[in-house]
């Protein structure tokens, strides 16, 4: 082989460089970065409209056994969601605060999944492909927010009325909030945001300067759950 052939082969070989998976399209509208704000002032104790709306349209089962329950969106006491907050926020102690998947910029659940069932879309939504989930629950161990639930049993007997426009899940898969990607695809806002009578929830594109979430984040003091972990949550709590 002469030098010219060698150089030709080297140039051909350059085409075989593997493209990293992060550079390939992974669903959603590129350029969007969906985020949610939760107004702690507006959210009133005892109201569960957002939870009911979400769980109804996504066929989330109502399982009484606490060890087996499934939840996409739920409420917890303030100090349980924000354990690192100092006691001068005592006014918020005991307040029941809404929580859901944070759709982190840097989601710890994604790299641990051995089958890539959990993945981050181009619009920032951390989504699950239930077809691929093998039920290993690494993602549940990795998620610092408890946003994921595992189906220990067939969920269908625990769904009051199955919504035919959305699949159920099956025994042996993990599930979580999807930021209503199926509604975003139809230009609708997430069901929880729509259901909130107090207008305590807002949803929008962080990349758009005039979006509702950007305006709220510019005017109000906001915090994220366990921000020190570096997961960069995209659910913001307005004080």
């Amino acid at each position, binding site marked *: 082989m002469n030098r010219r052939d060698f150089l030709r082969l080297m140039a051909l070989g350059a085409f075989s460089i593997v493209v990293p998976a992060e550079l390939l399209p*992974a*669903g959603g509208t590129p350029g969007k970065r969906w985020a949610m704000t939760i107004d702690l002032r507006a959210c009133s104790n005892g109201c569960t409209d957002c939870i009911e709306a979400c769980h109804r349209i996504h066929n989330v089962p109502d399982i009484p056994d606490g060890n087996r329950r499934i939840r996409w969106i739920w409420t917890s006491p303030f100090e349980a969601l924000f354990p690192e907050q100092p006691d001068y926020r005592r006014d918020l102690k005991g307040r029941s605060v809404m929580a859901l998947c944070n759709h982190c910029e840097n989601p710890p659940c994604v790299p641990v999944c051995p089958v890539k069932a959990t993945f981050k879309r181009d619009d920032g939504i951390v989504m699950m492909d239930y077809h691929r989930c093998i039920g290993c629950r690494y993602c549940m161990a990795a998620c610092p927010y408890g946003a994921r639930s595992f189906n220990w049993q067939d969920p269908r007997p625990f769904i009051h009325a199955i*919504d035919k*426009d*959305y*699949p*159920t899940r*099956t025994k042996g898969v993990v599930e979580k909030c999807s930021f209503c990607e199926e509604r975003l695809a139809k230009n609708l806002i997430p069901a929880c945001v729509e259901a909130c009578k107090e207008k305590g929830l807002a949803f929008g594109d962080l990349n758009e300067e005039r979006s509702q979430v950007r305006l709220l984040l510019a005017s109000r003091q906001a915090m994220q759950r366990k921000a020190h972990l570096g997961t960069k949550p995209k659910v913001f709590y307005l004080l």
Partner: protein
Amino acid sequence: MRDKILILAIIIAVLAGLAVPFFYSKIAGGTAPVLAPPPGGEKQCVEPVEYMRKHHVDLLIQWRDARVREGVLKYVASDGKGYTISLSSTCLGCHSNKADFCDRCHNYLRVNPRCFDCHVIPAKGGAAK
């Protein structure tokens, strides 16, 4: 070599036994199931019938990956017609007689696809089941 005939008979019997699967269906009278056409009278599936018969699984897998992983909502068929990617609405929208169409062949072939462990079968009349 006195047992020549006996040995030959045994060999033939064993070979015949091994060949049972090749002529079993002819003897037992197993015939391919007759599938019921869509009750709505649709004549055209997403792709030509011959392709669908052989490759509906491939198309479903293609739809699944396009919808879930790439966020694609529409499928453009080879004849240029667009279809919403949805098993429950688009496929079962025409083939609402799942028991007489999908199940009849799957049962005959003893294949057990698990699509409907999660995907919802729309009940006749449009109400959720």
